[in-house]
């Protein structure tokens, strides 16, 4: 069992490491402008030796675009998830730890936010702030916050009832210190695992926003934008969808495999 789980985790780690390397070094390695350079004589060219992954409707090389898109997509996903963690953590922690009316008020608020289509939220944010990468991050980050807050709250609620929290309280530890020393470390693994999974959703959310022309603005490349652009040519140029789709799928797969073993890695018990 252990060996199996470790292999799975290793695959996840290797996948993610590879993707991270591409994100960090890819843009430095490929020729400048390679991802936006157009070849009008080779529009929608299938994969070949000149264009390993084929080209898109404007004759741009998909290999270069997917490499450049890696950084954009991960940048957006990581920042948005970080933002939702930063917003959701105090919200969920306070709600779950103190309970009672604070919990009631905060969770009613979260429920209300959850009832709204995220798309409306994103559309409003983008209409008010304008479409660009930062605002995409804000839109996704804000939309994810209530989900995260809810999960964190549940975890905090569970931990707050543990005897070691009561033990800490009975030995004179203040609420703030209990949250910092006892609750936070114990919910962190769950939060990190959740954040890992949210990353996958954030990558997809960016694609969803591209459906409305929000998200990354062309000619910059992101996986979401590329998938979005492929939707009108799926039948005649499937590679335009397969290339970014595979990138997302591998990342999602990697994140999930990694997420499963992450909890073990973070747990001192498994050391």
């Amino acid at each position: 069992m252990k060996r199996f789980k470790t292999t799975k985790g290793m695959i996840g780690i290797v996948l993610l490491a590879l993707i991270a390397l591409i994100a960090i070094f890819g843009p430095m390695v490929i020729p400048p402008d390679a991802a936006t350079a157009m070849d009008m004589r080779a529009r929608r060219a299938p994969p070949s030796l000149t264009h390993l992954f084929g080209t898109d409707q404007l004759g741009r090389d998909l290999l270069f675009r997917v490499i450049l898109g890696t950084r954009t997509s991960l940048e957006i996903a990581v920042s948005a998830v970080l933002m939702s963690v930063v917003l959701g953590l105090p919200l969920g922690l306070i709600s779950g730890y103190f309970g009672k009316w604070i919990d009631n008020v905060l969770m009613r608020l979260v429920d209300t936010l959850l009832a709204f289509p995220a798309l409306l939220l994103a559309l409003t944010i983008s209409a008010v702030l304008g479409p660009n990468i930062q605002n995409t991050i804000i839109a996704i980050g804000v939309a994810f916050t209530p989900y995260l807050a809810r999960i964190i709250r549940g975890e905090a609620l569970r931990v707050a009832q543990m005897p070691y929290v009561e033990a800490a309280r009975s030995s004179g530890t203040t609420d703030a210190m209990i949250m910092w020393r006892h609750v936070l470390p114990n919910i962190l693994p769950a939060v990190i695992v959740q954040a890992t999974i949210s990353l996958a959703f954030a990558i997809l959310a960016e694609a969803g926003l591209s459906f409305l022309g929000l998200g990354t603005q062309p000619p910059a490349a992101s996986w979401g934008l590329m998938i979005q652009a492929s939707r009108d040519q799926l039948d005649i140029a499937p590679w335009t969808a397969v290339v970014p789709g595979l990138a997302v799928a591998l990342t999602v797969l990697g994140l999930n495999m990694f997420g499963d073993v992450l909890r073990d890695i973070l747990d001192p018990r498994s050391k």
Partner: protein
Amino acid sequence: MKDIVSVDHLRVEFATDGGTVVGVEDVSFTIAPGETLCVVGESGSGKSVTSLSLMRLVEFGGGTITAGSLNFERADGSLLDVAAANAQVMGAVRGHEIGMIFQEPMTALNPVFTIERQLTDGLMLHKGLTQAAASARALELLQSVRIPEPERRLKQYPHELSGGMRQRVVIAMAMACDPKLLIADEPTTALDVTIQAEILALINRLKRENGMAVLFITHDMAVVAQMADRVVVMYRGRIVETGSVTQIFENPQEDYTKALLAAVPKLGEMKGKPAPEKMRLIGDEAARAAAAPAKARKPEVLLQVKNLTTRFPVKGGILRRTVAQVHAVEDVSFSLNVGETLALVGESGCGKSSCGRSILRLIEPTSGEVWIGGRDIGALSHADLRRARADMQMVFQDPFASLNPYRRLKDQVAEPILNFGLATGAALDAMVLQLFDRVRLPRDFMNRYPHELSGGQRQRVAIARALAVNPKLIVADEAVSALDVSVQAQVLNLMMELQEDLGLSYLFISHDMAVVERVAHQVGVMYLGRIVEIGPRSAVFDSPQHPYTQSLLSAVPIADPRKRRFGEDLAFKPITSPIFPLGHKPAPSTYTEVTPGHFVLSL
């Protein structure tokens, strides 16, 4: 007569994260028809693995029988090697020819099916009964396990039944097809002592009436003494000793058996002794030497509890208003002297834990006063209370849950010291070091995490943490209940030693009468939130006055096969609910002093 079960050189292996682990090895024993065989051992001894192997249920926990045979004589007289039987045959044997009872009655029943459905599906499967016939048989079964109002129970769901009733249902299920062998895996461990007595008596009766054999798995030597015809003692996956129950208890051959028996407190063995005594530990003569009677102290009151009452609201209705109250602690008064131990005993739900927590104001009492060292705890502000907590510390039941898994032990012991600003830097390290020495933990444990320790070691850390701020009072809430008996003895001895050296006072909350008899100076018996009887240990144990105290003591199994108590059906008065409507004004607790210092609640 031929043996109904004959286990021969059983070996079970588990594939775990760390590779293959041997669960049991070279285990051989037999069970004769109509005989009760007790397999006894501490956690990790392999006793449950053995019983599960006999049902071939061990495979569902990741185990594999890799050697040996498990011969079982079937109803038709043929011999079946369970180890080699296929799934179909096992399906026919399980629940039909072998019945099994498990430890946790609260989770042993499927919460979403009615009692009837759970009782009848086995009958319909094995006996081919129609729904109606199965239902009739189910009712019969419930009657035979003496459940009140059996007709109504059939239509109920498990959560509507009390723990004792659920265990009776589980037994009824196991008995449904008149098995020749009943396997009972720690069937009373999770139950209160009076219910335990009832269930043990029930198993005895059913065994007698049906002439079936019983394989009884337990860790509790007292239960073994009460139930067994023959005993198998197991340790770390191997059999240590096998023999008749009197042989094992009166003339144990192996050191392990001897040590195990020594660590078991026997109810009544303290009769006539003035002060608590440490537990006997084989090979620990030093401890025995130190067990000299505690120095007589001048009585000096440390803790004074006056009319303490704690009620929890029961919310209901649209506006979440309080519609009723749980009277968890009701008008409780007592005092505890410096350097002494007051034990609060009682069954689950009697309010003993709430009482301890109310004293520390971990929950807010509704009314009453708590004086510690001349200070009224109830009147303290939030900040003052935090400071006052240096005087009163708590040790919790579950050593697994009361330590934060993500912090080093050093930091957890140091936390109270930091909270009160008692020391920092090198002085802090020195203090922590000293505390580890004090509770006899190796110093290199300081940098470890809780999971690297055993249960007893963790409880020592918890004690060290409680000691860190030099408290005067320690509330020990079932502090040794989760520990194996030998470890329990060690921790109890440590606590008594600390009491002698530091003059600590303990409020010792426990359900285990035998342990309480050993450690307490004073004993308070709680029932439905009130203390029904309180007084010096010898007075309460030797001449219990309150009927509840009497029934409690009569239900405690004694670790002596010659003092069997559970031959006939027992039925104790069930505990009523402590929930009362909002306006309910309970009568104040008034006591009669029967002998000096021995008070009994007036009826």
